[in-house]
Protein backbone atom coordinates (compact mmCIF):
# COMPACT_ATOMS: atom_id res chain seq x y z
CA UNK A 1 0.00 0.00 0.00
CA UNK A 2 1.37 3.38 -1.03
CA UNK A 3 1.66 6.08 1.59
CA UNK A 4 -0.14 9.34 1.03
CA UNK A 5 0.98 12.74 2.18
CA UNK A 6 -1.68 15.15 3.39
CA UNK A 7 -0.64 18.53 2.01
CA UNK A 8 -3.37 20.46 3.78
CA UNK A 9 -6.99 20.27 4.95
CA UNK A 10 -9.23 22.31 2.68
CA UNK A 11 -12.80 22.36 1.42
CA UNK A 12 -13.49 21.23 -2.13
CA UNK A 13 -15.71 24.29 -2.71
CA UNK A 14 -12.60 26.43 -2.29
CA UNK A 15 -10.96 24.33 -4.98
CA UNK A 16 -13.87 25.26 -7.21
CA UNK A 17 -13.51 28.95 -6.33
CA UNK A 18 -9.78 28.87 -7.12
CA UNK A 19 -10.41 27.00 -10.36
CA UNK A 20 -13.14 29.39 -11.45
CA UNK A 21 -10.90 32.40 -10.92
CA UNK A 22 -8.14 30.75 -12.94
CA UNK A 23 -10.58 29.69 -15.69
CA UNK A 24 -11.78 33.29 -15.86
CA UNK A 25 -8.21 34.51 -16.31
CA UNK A 26 -7.47 31.98 -19.03
CA UNK A 27 -10.63 32.59 -21.07
CA UNK A 28 -12.63 35.81 -21.18
CA UNK A 29 -15.69 33.90 -22.41
CA UNK A 30 -16.08 32.35 -18.95
CA UNK A 31 -18.94 33.96 -17.01
CA UNK A 32 -20.40 33.08 -13.61
CA UNK A 33 -23.90 33.23 -12.16
CA UNK A 34 -24.81 32.79 -8.53
CA UNK A 35 -28.12 32.55 -6.66
CA UNK A 36 -27.32 34.51 -3.51
CA UNK A 37 -24.59 32.15 -2.25
CA UNK A 38 -21.47 33.86 -3.55
CA UNK A 39 -19.50 33.42 -0.33
CA UNK A 40 -20.66 29.86 0.25
CA UNK A 41 -19.62 28.86 -3.28
CA UNK A 42 -16.31 30.76 -2.98
CA UNK A 43 -17.19 32.70 -6.11
CA UNK A 44 -16.28 36.05 -4.53
CA UNK A 45 -12.77 36.11 -5.97
CA UNK A 46 -14.19 35.74 -9.50
CA UNK A 47 -16.80 38.43 -8.78
CA UNK A 48 -14.12 40.83 -7.57
CA UNK A 49 -11.76 40.15 -10.48
CA UNK A 50 -14.42 40.09 -13.23
CA UNK A 51 -17.43 42.13 -12.05
CA UNK A 52 -18.74 42.50 -15.61
CA UNK A 53 -18.76 38.74 -16.10
CA UNK A 54 -20.43 37.91 -12.79
CA UNK A 55 -24.23 37.80 -12.55
CA UNK A 56 -25.99 37.86 -9.20
CA UNK A 57 -29.42 36.39 -9.87
CA UNK A 58 -30.90 36.37 -6.38
CA UNK A 59 -32.83 33.45 -4.94
CA UNK A 60 -34.22 32.40 -8.31
CA UNK A 61 -32.48 29.23 -9.42
CA UNK A 62 -34.88 28.38 -12.26
CA UNK A 63 -34.17 31.74 -13.84
CA UNK A 64 -30.45 31.21 -13.31
CA UNK A 65 -30.45 27.97 -15.32
CA UNK A 66 -32.33 29.63 -18.17
CA UNK A 67 -30.04 32.66 -18.15
CA UNK A 68 -27.01 30.38 -18.30
CA UNK A 69 -28.47 28.46 -21.23
CA UNK A 70 -29.12 31.75 -23.03
CA UNK A 71 -25.63 33.10 -22.40
CA UNK A 72 -24.12 30.20 -24.32
CA UNK A 73 -25.85 31.67 -27.38
CA UNK A 74 -23.20 34.17 -28.30
CA UNK A 75 -20.33 32.02 -27.08
CA UNK A 76 -20.20 32.49 -23.31
CA UNK A 77 -19.19 29.62 -21.02
CA UNK A 78 -21.45 30.04 -17.98
CA UNK A 79 -20.74 28.52 -14.57
CA UNK A 80 -23.75 28.47 -12.25
CA UNK A 81 -23.27 28.29 -8.51
CA UNK A 82 -25.60 27.28 -5.73
CA UNK A 83 -26.05 24.38 -3.30
CA UNK A 84 -26.35 20.94 -4.87
CA UNK A 85 -29.99 20.66 -3.87
CA UNK A 86 -30.92 23.91 -5.58
CA UNK A 87 -28.64 23.08 -8.53
CA UNK A 88 -30.56 19.93 -9.39
CA UNK A 89 -33.83 18.94 -7.74
CA UNK A 90 -35.22 22.43 -7.67
CA UNK A 91 -34.46 23.06 -11.33
CA UNK A 92 -34.53 19.64 -12.93
CA UNK A 93 -36.91 20.58 -15.69
CA UNK A 94 -35.01 23.75 -16.53
CA UNK A 95 -31.78 21.76 -16.80
CA UNK A 96 -33.49 19.02 -18.76
CA UNK A 97 -35.09 21.23 -21.42
CA UNK A 98 -33.05 24.43 -21.64
CA UNK A 99 -29.60 22.92 -21.00
CA UNK A 100 -29.31 19.15 -21.58
CA UNK A 101 -31.85 18.63 -24.37
CA UNK A 102 -30.73 21.91 -25.93
CA UNK A 103 -27.07 20.83 -25.73
CA UNK A 104 -25.97 24.03 -24.00
CA UNK A 105 -22.42 24.53 -22.77
CA UNK A 106 -23.39 25.26 -19.16
CA UNK A 107 -21.34 24.19 -16.13
CA UNK A 108 -23.65 23.47 -13.19
CA UNK A 109 -21.44 23.80 -10.14
CA UNK A 110 -22.96 22.44 -6.96
CA UNK A 111 -21.62 22.85 -3.46
CA UNK A 112 -22.71 21.50 -0.07
CA UNK A 113 -23.55 18.13 -1.59
CA UNK A 114 -24.33 15.14 0.59
CA UNK A 115 -24.36 14.51 4.31
CA UNK A 116 -21.22 16.56 4.99
CA UNK A 117 -23.27 19.73 4.74
CA UNK A 118 -23.91 18.79 8.36
CA UNK A 119 -26.06 20.75 10.74
CA UNK A 120 -28.50 22.21 8.18
CA UNK A 121 -30.15 18.81 7.93
CA UNK A 122 -31.91 16.83 5.25
CA UNK A 123 -33.63 19.73 3.45
CA UNK A 124 -30.21 20.78 2.20
CA UNK A 125 -28.30 17.47 2.19
CA UNK A 126 -29.16 16.23 -1.27
CA UNK A 127 -28.24 12.59 -1.84
CA UNK A 128 -30.05 12.09 -5.15
CA UNK A 129 -28.38 14.70 -7.35
CA UNK A 130 -25.89 12.42 -9.11
CA UNK A 131 -28.74 10.12 -10.08
CA UNK A 132 -30.82 12.94 -11.50
CA UNK A 133 -27.94 14.40 -13.45
CA UNK A 134 -26.53 11.15 -14.82
CA UNK A 135 -29.93 10.22 -16.24
CA UNK A 136 -29.88 13.25 -18.52
CA UNK A 137 -28.58 12.62 -22.04
CA UNK A 138 -25.56 14.81 -22.96
CA UNK A 139 -24.74 15.51 -19.29
CA UNK A 140 -21.26 14.88 -17.90
CA UNK A 141 -21.19 14.24 -14.14
CA UNK A 142 -18.05 14.88 -12.09
CA UNK A 143 -17.40 14.48 -8.37
CA UNK A 144 -13.77 15.24 -7.47
CA UNK A 145 -12.12 14.16 -4.24
CA UNK A 146 -10.15 17.08 -2.80
CA UNK A 147 -9.24 20.74 -3.16
CA UNK A 148 -6.58 20.26 -5.82
CA UNK A 149 -8.67 17.89 -7.90
CA UNK A 150 -11.72 20.15 -7.72
CA UNK A 151 -9.63 23.07 -8.95
CA UNK A 152 -8.24 21.02 -11.83
CA UNK A 153 -11.71 19.66 -12.65
CA UNK A 154 -13.08 23.21 -12.80
CA UNK A 155 -10.36 24.14 -15.29
CA UNK A 156 -11.00 21.00 -17.30
CA UNK A 157 -14.75 21.55 -17.65
CA UNK A 158 -14.14 25.11 -18.88
CA UNK A 159 -12.31 23.53 -21.82
CA UNK A 160 -14.96 20.85 -22.40
CA UNK A 161 -17.80 21.65 -24.78
CA UNK A 162 -21.13 20.47 -23.35
CA UNK A 163 -23.21 20.53 -20.19
CA UNK A 164 -21.47 19.40 -17.01
CA UNK A 165 -22.57 18.78 -13.44
CA UNK A 166 -19.69 19.39 -11.01
CA UNK A 167 -20.37 18.29 -7.42
CA UNK A 168 -18.35 19.33 -4.39
CA UNK A 169 -18.70 19.96 -0.67
CA UNK A 170 -18.35 22.16 2.32
CA UNK A 171 -16.12 20.52 4.98
CA UNK A 172 -12.37 20.77 5.18
CA UNK A 173 -10.95 17.41 4.17
CA UNK A 174 -7.43 16.12 3.45
CA UNK A 175 -5.78 17.45 0.31
CA UNK A 176 -3.68 14.60 -1.04
CA UNK A 177 -3.78 14.92 -4.84
CA UNK A 178 -0.74 16.78 -6.18
CA UNK A 179 -1.66 20.27 -7.38
CA UNK A 180 -0.13 19.63 -10.80
CA UNK A 181 -1.95 16.32 -11.33
CA UNK A 182 -3.86 16.80 -14.59
CA UNK A 183 -7.59 16.13 -14.58
CA UNK A 184 -8.91 14.12 -17.49
CA UNK A 185 -12.70 13.99 -17.79
CA UNK A 186 -13.93 10.42 -18.03
CA UNK A 187 -10.61 8.85 -17.04
CA UNK A 188 -10.52 6.89 -13.79
CA UNK A 189 -7.65 7.74 -11.49
CA UNK A 190 -5.54 4.91 -10.09
CA UNK A 191 -4.86 5.75 -6.46
CA UNK A 192 -3.27 2.47 -5.36
CA UNK A 193 -2.66 -0.70 -7.31
CA UNK A 194 -3.71 -3.89 -5.54
CA UNK A 195 -4.66 -7.48 -6.23
CA UNK A 196 -7.31 -8.75 -3.79
CA UNK A 197 -10.22 -6.32 -3.83
CA UNK A 198 -11.08 -3.09 -5.70
CA UNK A 199 -12.33 -0.06 -3.83
CA UNK A 200 -14.03 2.33 -6.25
CA UNK A 201 -14.88 5.69 -4.68
CA UNK A 202 -15.38 9.35 -5.44
CA UNK A 203 -15.68 12.64 -3.59
CA UNK A 204 -14.95 12.59 0.12
CA UNK A 205 -15.02 8.78 0.13
CA UNK A 206 -11.74 8.52 -1.78
CA UNK A 207 -9.76 9.48 1.32
CA UNK A 208 -11.85 7.07 3.36
CA UNK A 209 -11.03 4.34 0.82
CA UNK A 210 -7.32 5.10 1.29
CA UNK A 211 -7.71 4.73 5.06
CA UNK A 212 -9.62 1.49 4.46
CA UNK A 213 -6.89 0.27 2.12
CA UNK A 214 -4.29 0.88 4.83
CA UNK A 215 -6.38 -1.05 7.37
CA UNK A 216 -6.85 -3.92 4.93
CA UNK A 217 -3.14 -3.92 4.22
CA UNK A 218 -2.49 -4.52 7.91
CA UNK A 219 -4.63 -7.65 7.56
CA UNK A 220 -2.57 -8.78 4.59
CA UNK A 221 -5.19 -7.78 2.02
CA UNK A 222 -4.08 -5.85 -1.05
CA UNK A 223 -6.66 -3.26 -2.03
CA UNK A 224 -6.75 -1.57 -5.41
CA UNK A 225 -8.16 1.93 -4.98
CA UNK A 226 -9.58 3.78 -7.96
CA UNK A 227 -11.08 7.26 -7.94
CA UNK A 228 -14.06 7.39 -10.30
CA UNK A 229 -14.29 11.19 -10.28
CA UNK A 230 -16.29 11.12 -13.50
CA UNK A 231 -19.52 9.22 -12.90
CA UNK A 232 -20.59 9.87 -16.48
CA UNK A 233 -19.17 9.00 -18.88
CA UNK A 234 -17.98 6.04 -16.83
CA UNK A 235 -14.47 4.75 -17.55
CA UNK A 236 -15.76 1.25 -18.24
CA UNK A 237 -12.38 -0.08 -19.34
CA UNK A 238 -10.80 0.81 -16.02
CA UNK A 239 -13.74 -0.59 -14.06
CA UNK A 240 -13.80 -3.90 -15.93
CA UNK A 241 -10.01 -4.30 -15.91
CA UNK A 242 -9.76 -3.87 -12.16
CA UNK A 243 -12.80 -6.05 -11.39
CA UNK A 244 -11.35 -8.85 -13.51
CA UNK A 245 -8.01 -8.48 -11.76
CA UNK A 246 -9.24 -8.52 -8.15
CA UNK A 247 -12.56 -10.36 -8.44
CA UNK A 248 -14.18 -8.41 -5.62
CA UNK A 249 -15.53 -4.84 -5.62
CA UNK A 250 -16.69 -2.21 -3.14
CA UNK A 251 -18.15 1.11 -4.30
CA UNK A 252 -18.18 4.00 -1.81
CA UNK A 253 -19.91 7.32 -2.30
CA UNK A 254 -21.66 10.12 -0.42
CA UNK A 255 -24.98 9.60 -2.19
CA UNK A 256 -28.02 7.39 -2.24
CA UNK A 257 -27.33 3.84 -3.37
CA UNK A 258 -30.17 4.25 -5.86
CA UNK A 259 -28.91 6.26 -8.79
CA UNK A 260 -25.35 6.68 -7.65
CA UNK A 261 -21.89 5.62 -8.75
CA UNK A 262 -22.48 2.12 -7.37
CA UNK A 263 -25.39 1.60 -9.72
CA UNK A 264 -23.35 2.74 -12.71
CA UNK A 265 -20.52 0.36 -11.86
CA UNK A 266 -22.94 -2.48 -11.17
CA UNK A 267 -24.61 -1.98 -14.55
CA UNK A 268 -21.22 -2.03 -16.23
CA UNK A 269 -19.94 -5.12 -14.43
CA UNK A 270 -23.19 -7.04 -14.75
CA UNK A 271 -22.83 -6.70 -18.48
CA UNK A 272 -19.09 -7.14 -18.95
CA UNK A 273 -17.57 -8.82 -15.88
CA UNK A 274 -20.01 -10.02 -13.19
CA UNK A 275 -18.21 -9.63 -9.88
CA UNK A 276 -19.21 -9.84 -6.19
CA UNK A 277 -20.02 -6.25 -5.17
CA UNK A 278 -20.76 -4.43 -1.96
CA UNK A 279 -21.86 -0.84 -1.53
CA UNK A 280 -21.07 1.97 0.87
CA UNK A 281 -23.78 4.57 0.34
CA UNK A 282 -26.88 6.00 1.97
CA UNK A 283 -29.53 3.28 1.94
CA UNK A 284 -32.80 4.89 0.84
CA UNK A 285 -33.10 7.44 3.62
CA UNK A 286 -32.84 11.18 4.09
CA UNK A 287 -30.06 12.68 6.15
CA UNK A 288 -30.42 14.70 9.36
CA UNK A 289 -28.68 17.34 11.46
CA UNK A 290 -25.30 16.65 13.03
CA UNK A 291 -21.63 17.32 12.48
CA UNK A 292 -20.25 15.97 9.21
CA UNK A 293 -18.16 13.40 11.09
CA UNK A 294 -21.11 12.21 13.17
CA UNK A 295 -23.27 11.86 10.08
CA UNK A 296 -20.68 10.02 8.03
CA UNK A 297 -20.22 7.59 10.93
CA UNK A 298 -23.94 7.14 11.56
CA UNK A 299 -24.67 6.42 7.89
CA UNK A 300 -21.60 4.24 7.48
CA UNK A 301 -19.79 6.42 4.97
CA UNK A 302 -16.37 5.82 6.48
CA UNK A 303 -13.24 3.71 6.26
CA UNK A 304 -14.45 1.24 8.85
CA UNK A 305 -17.53 0.35 6.81
CA UNK A 306 -15.50 0.16 3.61
CA UNK A 307 -13.25 -2.41 5.33
CA UNK A 308 -16.28 -4.35 6.50
CA UNK A 309 -17.79 -4.38 3.03
CA UNK A 310 -14.45 -5.34 1.46
CA UNK A 311 -14.26 -8.40 3.70
CA UNK A 312 -17.83 -9.30 2.72
CA UNK A 313 -17.00 -8.99 -0.97
CA UNK A 314 -13.83 -11.03 -0.52
CA UNK A 315 -15.88 -13.73 1.19
CA UNK A 316 -18.13 -13.98 -1.85
CA UNK A 317 -15.31 -14.59 -4.34
Amino acid at each position, binding site marked *: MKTFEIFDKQDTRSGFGAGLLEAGKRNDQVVALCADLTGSLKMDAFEKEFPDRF*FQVGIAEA*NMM*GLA*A*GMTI*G*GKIPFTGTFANFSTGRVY*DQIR*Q*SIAYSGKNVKICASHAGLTLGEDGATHQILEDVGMMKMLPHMTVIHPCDFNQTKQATLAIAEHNGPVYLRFGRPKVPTFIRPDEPFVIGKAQMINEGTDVTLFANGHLVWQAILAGQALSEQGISAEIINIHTVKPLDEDAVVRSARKTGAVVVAEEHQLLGGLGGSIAECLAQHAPTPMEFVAVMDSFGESGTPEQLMDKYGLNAENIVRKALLALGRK
Partner: protein
Amino acid sequence: MPTPQELNRIASQVRRDILRMTNGSASGHPGGSLGCADYLVALYFEIMNVHPEKWDMDGIGEDLFFLSNGHISPVWYSVLSRRGYFPVSELGTFRKINSRLQGHPATEEGLEGIRVASGSLGQGLSVALGAAQAKKLNGDKSLVYTLHGDGELQEGQIWEAAMYAAHNKVDNVISVVDYNGQQIDGPLSAVLDLGDLAGKWKAFGWNVLTMDGHDMEDILKTVHQAQGMCGQGKPTIILMTTAMGKGVDFMEGTHKWHGVAPNDEQLANALGQLEETLGDY
Protein backbone atom coordinates in the same frame (compact mmCIF):
# COMPACT_ATOMS: atom_id res chain seq x y z
CA MET B 1 -39.58 46.21 -46.92
CA PRO B 2 -42.82 44.32 -47.54
CA THR B 3 -46.03 46.31 -47.17
CA PRO B 4 -48.69 45.33 -44.59
CA GLN B 5 -50.75 43.95 -47.48
CA GLU B 6 -47.87 41.75 -48.61
CA LEU B 7 -47.34 40.55 -45.04
CA ASN B 8 -51.01 39.66 -44.79
CA ARG B 9 -50.69 37.56 -47.92
CA ILE B 10 -47.76 35.67 -46.39
CA ALA B 11 -49.78 35.17 -43.20
CA SER B 12 -52.61 33.61 -45.20
CA GLN B 13 -50.19 31.03 -46.57
CA VAL B 14 -48.75 30.43 -43.09
CA ARG B 15 -52.25 29.72 -41.80
CA ARG B 16 -52.76 27.20 -44.59
CA ASP B 17 -49.45 25.57 -43.63
CA ILE B 18 -50.49 25.36 -39.97
CA LEU B 19 -53.77 23.65 -40.83
CA ARG B 20 -52.20 21.23 -43.29
CA MET B 21 -49.33 20.36 -40.91
CA THR B 22 -51.60 19.61 -37.95
CA ASN B 23 -54.01 17.71 -40.18
CA GLY B 24 -51.10 15.77 -41.68
CA SER B 25 -49.91 14.54 -38.30
CA ALA B 26 -53.41 14.39 -36.78
CA SER B 27 -51.98 16.25 -33.79
CA GLY B 28 -50.50 19.56 -32.73
CA HIS B 29 -51.77 22.96 -31.68
CA PRO B 30 -53.52 24.94 -34.42
CA GLY B 31 -55.41 27.43 -32.22
CA GLY B 32 -52.53 29.45 -30.78
CA SER B 33 -50.55 29.00 -34.00
CA LEU B 34 -53.26 30.66 -36.09
CA GLY B 35 -53.52 33.44 -33.51
CA CYS B 36 -49.81 34.30 -33.73
CA ALA B 37 -49.40 33.98 -37.51
CA ASP B 38 -49.63 37.71 -38.18
CA TYR B 39 -47.08 38.64 -35.54
CA LEU B 40 -44.51 36.03 -36.52
CA VAL B 41 -44.80 36.98 -40.18
CA ALA B 42 -44.26 40.62 -39.29
CA LEU B 43 -41.33 39.68 -37.06
CA TYR B 44 -39.44 37.57 -39.59
CA PHE B 45 -40.33 39.43 -42.79
CA GLU B 46 -40.18 43.04 -41.63
CA ILE B 47 -39.09 43.64 -38.05
CA MET B 48 -36.06 41.48 -37.33
CA ASN B 49 -32.65 41.69 -38.93
CA VAL B 50 -31.87 38.02 -39.58
CA HIS B 51 -29.59 36.04 -41.89
CA PRO B 52 -31.30 32.71 -42.61
CA GLU B 53 -28.86 32.00 -45.42
CA LYS B 54 -25.92 31.88 -43.01
CA TRP B 55 -27.62 30.42 -39.95
CA ASP B 56 -25.53 29.70 -36.89
CA MET B 57 -26.34 29.12 -33.25
CA ASP B 58 -24.61 32.21 -31.86
CA GLY B 59 -26.43 34.66 -34.13
CA ILE B 60 -23.89 37.41 -33.53
CA GLY B 61 -24.87 40.64 -35.27
CA GLU B 62 -28.46 39.54 -35.93
CA ASP B 63 -31.68 39.75 -33.97
CA LEU B 64 -32.78 36.63 -32.09
CA PHE B 65 -36.23 35.21 -31.44
CA PHE B 66 -37.23 32.81 -28.67
CA LEU B 67 -40.58 31.02 -28.71
CA SER B 68 -41.34 30.30 -25.08
CA ASN B 69 -44.76 28.75 -25.70
CA GLY B 70 -43.28 26.00 -27.82
CA HIS B 71 -46.55 24.23 -28.52
CA ILE B 72 -47.33 26.74 -31.27
CA SER B 73 -44.43 25.26 -33.22
CA PRO B 74 -46.48 24.94 -36.45
CA VAL B 75 -46.59 28.71 -36.97
CA TRP B 76 -42.88 29.06 -36.21
CA TYR B 77 -41.87 26.22 -38.52
CA SER B 78 -44.00 27.62 -41.31
CA VAL B 79 -42.58 31.13 -40.95
CA LEU B 80 -38.99 29.86 -40.67
CA SER B 81 -39.31 27.78 -43.81
CA ARG B 82 -41.11 30.51 -45.76
CA ARG B 83 -38.30 32.90 -44.70
CA GLY B 84 -35.69 30.51 -46.06
CA TYR B 85 -34.25 28.76 -43.01
CA PHE B 86 -35.03 25.29 -44.36
CA PRO B 87 -36.95 23.81 -47.30
CA VAL B 88 -40.71 24.40 -47.27
CA SER B 89 -41.19 20.75 -48.27
CA GLU B 90 -39.94 19.74 -44.83
CA LEU B 91 -43.17 21.08 -43.28
CA GLY B 92 -44.81 17.85 -44.39
CA THR B 93 -42.71 15.92 -41.86
CA PHE B 94 -44.11 17.80 -38.86
CA ARG B 95 -44.49 15.50 -35.82
CA LYS B 96 -43.64 12.41 -37.86
CA ILE B 97 -40.93 9.86 -37.12
CA ASN B 98 -37.36 10.90 -38.06
CA SER B 99 -38.39 14.53 -38.57
CA ARG B 100 -36.45 17.64 -37.61
CA LEU B 101 -39.82 19.28 -36.94
CA GLN B 102 -40.50 17.87 -33.51
CA GLY B 103 -43.84 18.36 -31.81
CA HIS B 104 -42.21 21.07 -29.75
CA PRO B 105 -39.19 23.02 -31.02
CA ALA B 106 -35.82 21.40 -30.38
CA THR B 107 -32.16 21.84 -31.27
CA GLU B 108 -31.36 18.12 -31.09
CA GLU B 109 -32.02 17.50 -34.79
CA GLY B 110 -30.23 20.66 -35.91
CA LEU B 111 -33.22 22.50 -37.37
CA GLU B 112 -32.07 25.90 -38.58
CA GLY B 113 -33.63 28.81 -36.72
CA ILE B 114 -34.14 27.06 -33.38
CA ARG B 115 -31.75 28.06 -30.60
CA VAL B 116 -33.23 26.33 -27.58
CA ALA B 117 -35.87 23.70 -26.89
CA SER B 118 -39.21 24.88 -25.58
CA GLY B 119 -42.45 23.23 -24.65
CA SER B 120 -42.22 22.95 -20.91
CA LEU B 121 -43.58 26.41 -20.23
CA GLY B 122 -42.08 29.42 -18.52
CA GLN B 123 -38.44 28.96 -19.51
CA GLY B 124 -38.03 31.08 -22.63
CA LEU B 125 -37.82 34.49 -21.02
CA SER B 126 -34.88 33.45 -18.86
CA VAL B 127 -33.04 32.01 -21.86
CA ALA B 128 -33.74 35.12 -23.91
CA LEU B 129 -32.44 37.38 -21.14
CA GLY B 130 -29.25 35.33 -20.98
CA ALA B 131 -28.82 35.69 -24.73
CA ALA B 132 -29.52 39.42 -24.44
CA GLN B 133 -26.86 39.81 -21.76
CA ALA B 134 -24.41 37.82 -23.89
CA LYS B 135 -25.11 40.32 -26.68
CA LYS B 136 -24.26 43.17 -24.34
CA LEU B 137 -21.01 41.47 -23.30
CA ASN B 138 -20.17 41.02 -26.98
CA GLY B 139 -20.93 44.66 -27.81
CA ASP B 140 -23.64 43.39 -30.18
CA LYS B 141 -26.36 46.01 -30.62
CA SER B 142 -28.97 43.72 -32.15
CA LEU B 143 -32.13 42.85 -30.23
CA VAL B 144 -33.76 39.80 -28.69
CA TYR B 145 -37.48 39.06 -29.15
CA THR B 146 -39.62 36.61 -27.21
CA LEU B 147 -43.16 35.30 -27.47
CA HIS B 148 -45.15 33.88 -24.57
CA GLY B 149 -48.59 32.46 -24.10
CA ASP B 150 -50.79 34.28 -21.63
CA GLY B 151 -51.52 31.03 -19.82
CA GLU B 152 -47.76 30.53 -19.61
CA LEU B 153 -47.54 33.57 -17.37
CA GLN B 154 -48.99 31.41 -14.60
CA GLU B 155 -45.51 29.84 -14.34
CA GLY B 156 -43.42 31.35 -11.54
CA GLN B 157 -40.17 31.36 -13.50
CA ILE B 158 -41.58 34.07 -15.76
CA TRP B 159 -41.76 36.42 -12.81
CA GLU B 160 -38.27 35.52 -11.59
CA ALA B 161 -37.08 36.51 -15.04
CA ALA B 162 -39.23 39.64 -15.11
CA MET B 163 -37.71 40.82 -11.84
CA TYR B 164 -34.20 40.04 -13.04
CA ALA B 165 -34.60 41.89 -16.33
CA ALA B 166 -35.68 45.13 -14.70
CA HIS B 167 -33.05 44.96 -11.94
CA ASN B 168 -30.29 44.34 -14.47
CA LYS B 169 -31.59 46.83 -17.05
CA VAL B 170 -31.82 44.24 -19.82
CA ASP B 171 -33.11 46.83 -22.27
CA ASN B 172 -32.34 44.99 -25.50
CA VAL B 173 -35.33 42.66 -25.16
CA ILE B 174 -38.82 43.04 -26.62
CA SER B 175 -41.24 40.46 -25.27
CA VAL B 176 -44.73 39.81 -26.54
CA VAL B 177 -47.61 38.08 -24.80
CA ASP B 178 -50.14 36.26 -26.95
CA TYR B 179 -53.08 37.65 -24.99
CA ASN B 180 -55.90 35.48 -26.31
CA GLY B 181 -57.44 34.80 -22.91
CA GLN B 182 -57.62 31.04 -23.48
CA GLN B 183 -55.79 28.01 -22.14
CA ILE B 184 -56.33 24.25 -22.43
CA ASP B 185 -58.94 23.95 -19.72
CA GLY B 186 -60.87 27.06 -20.69
CA PRO B 187 -60.74 30.84 -20.36
CA LEU B 188 -57.89 32.17 -18.22
CA SER B 189 -60.45 34.09 -16.23
CA ALA B 190 -61.93 30.76 -15.12
CA VAL B 191 -58.73 28.72 -14.75
CA LEU B 192 -56.40 31.22 -13.06
CA ASP B 193 -56.99 34.87 -13.78
CA LEU B 194 -53.98 37.07 -14.54
CA GLY B 195 -55.72 40.10 -13.09
CA ASP B 196 -54.27 43.47 -14.05
CA LEU B 197 -51.63 42.10 -16.39
CA ALA B 198 -50.35 45.47 -17.61
CA GLY B 199 -50.18 46.66 -14.01
CA LYS B 200 -48.22 43.56 -13.02
CA TRP B 201 -45.55 44.10 -15.67
CA LYS B 202 -45.34 47.81 -14.85
CA ALA B 203 -44.88 46.95 -11.19
CA PHE B 204 -42.06 44.61 -12.19
CA GLY B 205 -40.33 47.55 -13.89
CA TRP B 206 -41.12 46.94 -17.56
CA ASN B 207 -42.35 49.28 -20.28
CA VAL B 208 -45.78 47.97 -21.29
CA LEU B 209 -47.37 48.48 -24.71
CA THR B 210 -50.48 46.95 -26.24
CA MET B 211 -51.31 46.05 -29.82
CA ASP B 212 -53.87 44.28 -31.97
CA GLY B 213 -52.21 41.06 -33.08
CA HIS B 214 -54.34 40.87 -36.22
CA ASP B 215 -53.79 44.42 -37.47
CA MET B 216 -50.52 44.37 -39.41
CA GLU B 217 -50.15 48.14 -39.35
CA ASP B 218 -50.65 48.24 -35.60
CA ILE B 219 -48.12 45.41 -35.13
CA LEU B 220 -45.45 47.23 -37.13
CA LYS B 221 -46.13 50.59 -35.49
CA THR B 222 -46.11 49.18 -31.96
CA VAL B 223 -42.98 47.04 -32.36
CA HIS B 224 -41.12 49.94 -33.97
CA GLN B 225 -42.17 52.05 -31.00
CA ALA B 226 -40.81 49.32 -28.70
CA GLN B 227 -37.53 49.31 -30.63
CA GLY B 228 -37.27 53.03 -29.93
CA MET B 229 -37.57 52.33 -26.20
CA CYS B 230 -34.63 49.90 -26.22
CA GLY B 231 -31.32 51.01 -24.76
CA GLN B 232 -32.94 53.20 -22.13
CA GLY B 233 -32.57 50.98 -19.11
CA LYS B 234 -35.88 49.11 -19.13
CA PRO B 235 -37.12 45.92 -20.78
CA THR B 236 -40.28 46.21 -22.88
CA ILE B 237 -43.28 43.93 -23.18
CA ILE B 238 -46.21 44.15 -25.58
CA LEU B 239 -49.58 42.70 -24.64
CA MET B 240 -50.83 41.49 -28.00
CA THR B 241 -54.57 40.93 -28.22
CA THR B 242 -55.34 37.96 -30.45
CA ALA B 243 -58.07 35.47 -31.13
CA MET B 244 -57.10 31.83 -30.82
CA GLY B 245 -57.86 30.14 -34.13
CA LYS B 246 -57.86 33.44 -36.07
CA GLY B 247 -58.70 33.13 -39.76
CA VAL B 248 -60.93 30.06 -39.58
CA ASP B 249 -64.48 30.85 -38.53
CA PHE B 250 -65.21 27.66 -36.64
CA MET B 251 -61.91 27.75 -34.76
CA GLU B 252 -61.87 31.41 -33.79
CA GLY B 253 -62.09 32.63 -30.20
CA THR B 254 -62.39 29.28 -28.43
CA HIS B 255 -59.93 27.12 -26.48
CA LYS B 256 -61.39 24.01 -28.13
CA TRP B 257 -58.80 24.07 -30.92
CA HIS B 258 -55.87 24.62 -28.59
CA GLY B 259 -54.54 21.13 -29.08
CA VAL B 260 -56.85 19.48 -31.59
CA ALA B 261 -56.02 19.02 -35.27
CA PRO B 262 -58.63 19.46 -37.99
CA ASN B 263 -59.83 16.30 -39.75
CA ASP B 264 -59.94 16.15 -43.55
CA GLU B 265 -63.42 17.64 -43.81
CA GLN B 266 -62.64 20.43 -41.36
CA LEU B 267 -59.39 21.08 -43.21
CA ALA B 268 -61.17 21.50 -46.52
CA ASN B 269 -63.62 23.91 -44.95
CA ALA B 270 -60.80 25.89 -43.30
CA LEU B 271 -58.62 26.06 -46.41
CA GLY B 272 -61.58 27.42 -48.32
CA GLN B 273 -61.39 30.48 -46.07
CA LEU B 274 -57.69 31.17 -46.68
CA GLU B 275 -56.10 32.19 -49.96
CA GLU B 276 -53.13 30.16 -51.17
CA THR B 277 -50.64 32.96 -51.84
CA LEU B 278 -47.19 31.35 -51.97
CA GLY B 279 -48.03 27.80 -53.01
CA ASP B 280 -48.76 24.98 -50.59
CA TYR B 281 -45.81 22.78 -49.64
